[in-house]
């Protein structure tokens, strides 16, 4: 991966934003409402702030290896084989992540919009789009995000604005009925869905912004603004659909969009609103897949990741059909396995690697200094 793609800070912020909004915006109100009840929006805020801690870790981790991808850094710090071994969980998580996102999309389409179309058709079409995007490269993806971002904002504003008349603020009361405790788990869930997968940007960010401190701020800004969108959607979901409906719906945001009604003329525009989710899901899937494919390329020592895009894309499609045997298995996995899994890969491992990296850097530094005094 010798080609260094230069992204602008604006592009990077937008990518982070779209990625962290990703699938989160479509699904998160359900598990939050199930656990935190009417305080789901508070849980969302807590999770959002928690995400910033994670980002702080990623940014400081990235400062250790300017100009390198994460996996290259691992190989440099821990040696070739241990480094490759340590890269495996990240690559695996990206792989599972991209399959899950494809599954989400297909499942969303078949359950909510077009029940008669086989799920494979959606996965294939969307994967073709992913393959096209990844083959064109990071720069093109970033520019695409730049052009599509205003459309996302437009659709979101329309959604939020047209839903305001429906808000029933009584539904959020009583606030913190059972104290802070029930909020913690859903907040973790939020951070796991929205912020922890951001580690894939460690494959992008240190390479594209070698000496720019501002890039760290862009990372934070992206997560901050992205979080606002999700918090708003969670709040709308609780105040409009109510706790029960939000918790039971697989895709509460979609149910929310169905509520739009302007003068009995503009109504049931949920499919147009879904355009917004297709956009964010595309970027989520694209960067999961990017993490997976560049990781594989690094493992195999390929100079360019592009030849791997098509085969890896095919593998992702195939695994998206089997990653969840059923919707029940999906909710089981999400409520039990996913959170520890994400925390391990997205937080604990990076933390360990960060500390190891720091120690190694200090040792190197001392060695250098020692060598200097000997002469």
């Amino acid at each position, binding site marked *: 991966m010798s080609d260094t793609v230069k992204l602008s800070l604006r592009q990077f912020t937008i990518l982070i934003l779209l990625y962290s909004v990703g699938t989160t915006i479509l699904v998160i109100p359900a598990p939050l409402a199930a656990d935190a009840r009417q305080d789901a929006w508070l849980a969302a805020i807590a999770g959002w702030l928690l995400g910033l801690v994670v980002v702080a870790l990623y940014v400081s981790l990235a400062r250790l290896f300017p100009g390198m991808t994460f996996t290259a850094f691992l190989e440099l710090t821990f040696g070739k084989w241990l480094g490759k071994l340590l890269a495996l969980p990240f690559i695996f998580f990206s792989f599972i992540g991209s399959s899950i996102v494809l599954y989400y999309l297909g499942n969303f389409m078949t359950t909510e919009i077009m029940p008669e179309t086989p799920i494979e058709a959606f996965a294939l079409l969307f994967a073709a789009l992913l393959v096209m995007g990844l083959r064109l490269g990071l720069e093109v993806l970033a520019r695409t995000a730049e052009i599509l971002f205003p459309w996302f904002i437009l659709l979101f504003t329309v959604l939020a604005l047209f839903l305001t008349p429906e808000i029933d603020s009584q539904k959020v009361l009583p606030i913190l009925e059972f104290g802070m405790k029930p909020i913690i788990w859903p907040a973790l869930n939020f951070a796991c869905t929205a912020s922890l997968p951001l580690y894939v940007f460690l494959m992008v960010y240190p390479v594209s912004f070698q000496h720019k401190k501002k890039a760290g701020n862009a990372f934070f800004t992206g997560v901050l603004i992205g979080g606002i969108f999700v918090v708003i959607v969670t709040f709308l979901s609780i105040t409009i659909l109510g706790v029960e409906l939000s918790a039971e719906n697989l895709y509460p945001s979609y149910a929310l969009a169905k509520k739009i009604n302007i003068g009995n003329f503009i109504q049931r525009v949920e499919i147009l609103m*879904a355009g917004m989710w297709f956009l964010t899901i595309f970027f989520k899937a694209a960067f999961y897949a990017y993490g997976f494919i560049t990781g594989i390329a690094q493992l195999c020592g390929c100079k360019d990741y592009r030849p791997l895009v098509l085969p890896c894309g095919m593998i992702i499609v195939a695994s998206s059909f089997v990653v969840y045997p059923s919707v029940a298995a999906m909710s089981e996995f999400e409520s039990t396995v996913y959170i520890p899994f994400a925390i391990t890969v997205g937080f604990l491992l990076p933390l360990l690697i960060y500390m190891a990296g720091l120690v190694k850097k200090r040792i190197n530094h001392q060695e250098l200094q020692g060598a200097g005094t000997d002469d």
Partner: protein
Amino acid sequence: MDNNMPQAEPIKVKLQPNIDKIRKDLGNSDDIVIREIAFGVARAAIIYTDGLADKKMITDFILETPDQTTERDNLLEALKELAQKLGDYKEITNFQEIYSSILSGGTVLLLDGCSRGVSASTQGWKDRSISEPISQVVVRGPQEGFTETLRTNTSMIRRKIKNPNLWVETRQIGKVTKTDVAIMYINGIVNGKVVKEVRKRLDKINIDGILESGYIEELIQDETYSPFPTVNNSERPDSVAAALLEGRVAILVDGTPFVLIVPTLFISFFQTAEDYYQRADISTLLRMIRFISLFIAMVGPALYIGITTFHQELLPTQLLISLAAQREGVPFPAFIEALLMEITFEILREAGIRMPRPIGQAVSIVGTLVIGQAAVEAGIVSASMVIVVAITAISSFVITGYSMAISVRMLRFVIMGLAAAFGVFGIVVALIALVMHLCSLRSFGVPYMSPFAPFIPDDHKDTIFRLPHWAMTSRPRLISQRNIIREQMSRPAKPQK
């Protein structure tokens, strides 16, 4: 050509072998005129192409041939002196020069006993006079368009930009046709890298003939496998002058009024010359209408197919009932219906363009009316589909760049197919793919979608909005990288209080 005719052969001393060789090489063509005259003490030959050279000038020249007294040694000098009266002249020594001179309208003078000749430029062929540009009509603005003659075209641009920094480079491209191709740019404003790149790409061209600038366009464009044009063309000297002032390069090809402009951005195809002659607010409104038209022209039928096939809930109940009633007698699914109408329309349009002008318009209008009306009454298509197709068609005419409009027409069918299979999801996928493709394009190193992506706030003065001239203080950043400042911010003059 070059290998079977040793053209670089030097001119012989004797006149007669020279004349014989010229006759033989040019296949005794009737339009090549060789007149032998007495020039002082020696014989001389005047060679030119009938129809390309100005006959009157040549006749005048022959009448002025010197008397017998001129010495034999000074004959060539005398010849040159005379040639000066004809216009620019140069000394020539070989046959290649002879042929290139006479075949481009010059006259060659050969002397007996002298291995050098003189070629004078006596170009005087018939060409079309300057007339209104047909493809880019304006209500307000200059009404002159380029012609088929390269010199006339360069002079029209020079008349607009009277600046010593307006430079012209000419070269001949086409091994057989030897077509003159000129590059024009304003030195100091243009990005030197782009000029170098244009030169490089033009020099690489290895083709037998260039008959229109479309040949050049296809040979120098960045991306062949793209429906989108990355080279713009214009028939209007004012548009080309404006492009030069922004730091672009114009490529003029002899024999066509269409001048190429590079680098070209996506946005170029939505700007017309008139935008800059009208008030800024009106221009901005028109620009927005063009973008809306682009959207309708591209996804209009697709949205109709998608919504009536998969997302009926989107429609208000009354509209849905009336649509259902219309579609009751129609035997086809919406996609087939739309495809039928779109293809019919494209056929009509193509017929309208290709037919002799007097019949063309009448046939296309009558055809559309009759086919639309009759098709609805016969129950083959629904009336609403005719409306959708008509709006789409009109919208595609609004897109100012003709080459862009064609690509939109083409893409429409792809998006219709996706909408028929996947509804709105298919449309969104198609649009994302389209945006990605657009973002991957470059025109002579400049990202095609700039200033949208990469986003350049300063360059948005002339995209969807057209700010007043006093506010357009800078040139497009990525096109003219050297000399950005166009003018100092100057508020319009206001009456003193």
